[in-house]
């Protein structure tokens, strides 16, 4: 099949946007200039490619065109201050001007460009920026979402989002946040921050508490795309690959999580034929890699990362028979590494599902007593579920009612209502 110019540009946009912006920021130091020139290059591609055909290496073509645009703009700006800008222009000129219509051309030197994308990721996710600004900046500069799209995804007015982006870029310039991959001594401190932003992006799309469904699906796709890039660029970082596996496993169930009427379907009731098994296979391959402590976690290694543990748990859940005892011990390890009442709640479920209903309920009751999750509908819903499984139907119904009041979304309320009706009719 021959792709149309529009399809080719759309594909190139997905694959190349972040790379081009990152390269231009690296060479000019000017974030706005980089975004605008990248945008113009894609606009020019639409007309040029339908007229002259699609270049063999669209990425190189776009990078060159965007780079030329940047030179033009800097030249115009340089008329008044020629010397100051000359360095930037010289640097831009050094880039490869060949864009792939020569079949004998060597592959683009990947090192330089790949590094730029990694630099951009670490800069967007710099901890001196507010978390919401890190997320917005990542989506704008690396994923190429428009300000309007990002605003819709996070349910804020577009001018608010625009202001957030302008402010973040202004701080990067004014406070001299360096455009770089942090030196080795800072990496252990900074890499988790990048992973956290990407996982937050994914969860924003995945949990779909509100907002535009299409944009939310795009968030998941972009998060996976970016963490895939990160995993490639940081092969020595096991948690990047673990996070990729975790996202793939969760995302693989997207078509089965909600039924035709928009209701949530629990894992055990999902139509497995609607899972994306290619994504599960990719995740399993990542987890089997010994490089990230793979080949089966034995429950003894306490230095194992939290994404790795969560990915292992997600992996257990896509097996034909869930090994609940293993899930329970993985949650126990996760709780040690990352103490949180939500993790404990999940551990309680696993303990109950592994056959120890009373043990699971005891953990849930203890959580309820501590009051940390008061107001969290899933605490009540979990307790209700375990009581139902134990046969305490009346108590279970009362607990479902409690969860119903607290549930934040219509889908979840319908699910709980369904449970209550089932109990009433049994």
């Amino acid at each position: 099949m021959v792709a149309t110019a529009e399809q080719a540009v759309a594909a190139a946009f997905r694959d190349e946007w972040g790379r081009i912006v990152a390269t231009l920021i690296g060479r000019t130091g000017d974030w706005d200039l980089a975004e605008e020139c990248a945008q113009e290059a894609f606009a020019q591609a639409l007309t040029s490619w339908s007229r002259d055909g699609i270049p063999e290496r669209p990425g190189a073509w776009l990078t060159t065109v965007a780079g030329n645009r940047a030179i033009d703009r800097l030249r115009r700006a340089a008329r008044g201050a020629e010397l100051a800008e000359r360095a930037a222009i010289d640097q831009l000129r050094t880039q490869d001007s060949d864009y792939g219509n020569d079949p004998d051309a060597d592959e683009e030197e990947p090192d330089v460009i790949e590094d730029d994308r990694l630099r951009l990721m670490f800069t967007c996710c710099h901890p001196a920026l507010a978390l919401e600004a890190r997320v917005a900046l990542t989506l704008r500069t690396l994923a190429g979402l428009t300000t309007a799209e990002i605003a819709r995804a996070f349910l804020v007015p577009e001018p608010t989002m625009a202001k957030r982006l302008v402010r973040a870029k202004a701080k990067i310039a004014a406070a001299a946040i360096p455009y770089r991959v942090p030196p080795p001594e800072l990496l252990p401190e900074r890499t988790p921050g990048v992973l956290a932003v990407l996982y937050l992006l994914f969860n924003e799309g995945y949990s779909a508490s509100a907002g535009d469904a299409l944009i939310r699906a795009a968030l998941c796709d972009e998060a996976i795309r970016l963490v895939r890039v990160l995993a490639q660029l940081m092969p020595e970082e096991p948690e990047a690959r673990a996070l990729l596996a975790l996202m793939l496993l969760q995302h693989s169930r997207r078509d089965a999580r909600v039924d035709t009427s928009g209701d949530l379907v629990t894992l055990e009731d999902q139509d497995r034929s609607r899972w994306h098994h290619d994504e599960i296979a990719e995740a399993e391959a990542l987890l089997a890699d010994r490089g990230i402590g793979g080949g089966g976690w034995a429950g003894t290694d306490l230095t194992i990362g939290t994404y790795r543990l969560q990915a292992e748990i997600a992996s257990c859940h896509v097996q034909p028979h869930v090994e609940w005892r293993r899930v329970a011990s993985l949650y126990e390890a996760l709780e040690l590494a990352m103490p949180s009442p939500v993790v404990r709640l999940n551990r309680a479920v696993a303990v109950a599902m592994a056959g120890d209903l009373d043990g699971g309920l005891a953990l849930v009751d203890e959580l309820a007593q501590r009051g940390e999750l008061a107001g969290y509908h899933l605490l009540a819903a979990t307790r209700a579920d375990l009581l139902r499984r134990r046969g305490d139907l009346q108590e279970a119904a009362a607990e479902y009612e409690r969860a119903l009041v607290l549930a934040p979304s219509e889908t979840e309320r319908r699910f709980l209502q369904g449970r209550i009706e089932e109990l009433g009719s049994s």
Partner: protein
Amino acid sequence: MKYLMLICTDGVSTPEIAATMQEHVPSWAEEMKGRGVRRFGLALEGLGSARTVRVRGGETLIADGPFVESKEFIGGLNVIDCENLDEAIEVAAKHPVSWHFTIEVRPFIDYAQQPGCAPESDPVDIDPSSARYLLMMCLDGIPEAPEVEERIMRDSVAWREQVQASGDYVYGHPIQHANTATSVRVRDGKTLLTDGPFTESKEFLGGFAILSCETQEDAIALAAKHPLARFHMIEVRPFFNHGRNG
């Protein structure tokens, strides 16, 4: 790249904290001076001696207290010269105040990008023992009309030249907007950063000037002549032990 490092504490110190400061502040200062990072640093007297100065309708209004009431307040400042914000954060995180309280790091406004502003002398040349009073220019963040902003800028330069001529001026600098601030706290060995100044408030620090005048009345009189006193507010505070602690 120069940054102003604001030392912010809540003024309540335990004997343990006091001992930590006594032990670590001098070695921090020595290390940062040796690295060429620290230009100078001075501690301030407590809030009891803070006065704010405003001029409205030609009348000078003086009030007790700092420009912003908050749990933590500015107890001293350092000027540091760093390669980038990462280095400034590292420097702040090594200062023991960040282990218990907060250090705000704010970039200087680059004079090279402000045509018409003559650069100040490098703060490495200043004599800390001549530093008696600190003026803190407190802005309310609402910009005036462009022509008014321009006039304030011109008048500020004229004010500086005047105070320099009378021999009362030691050093000063405008700093970037509070939006560019980073607050550094170290807890349990982890460096925690916040995007923004040490305390959220409408008013924020926009610049400072160090004066060598003999009395606080003199410093207040000079502050009242500064154009920002007419539009905003200036806090006047003596340096601890009149600067003889630098």
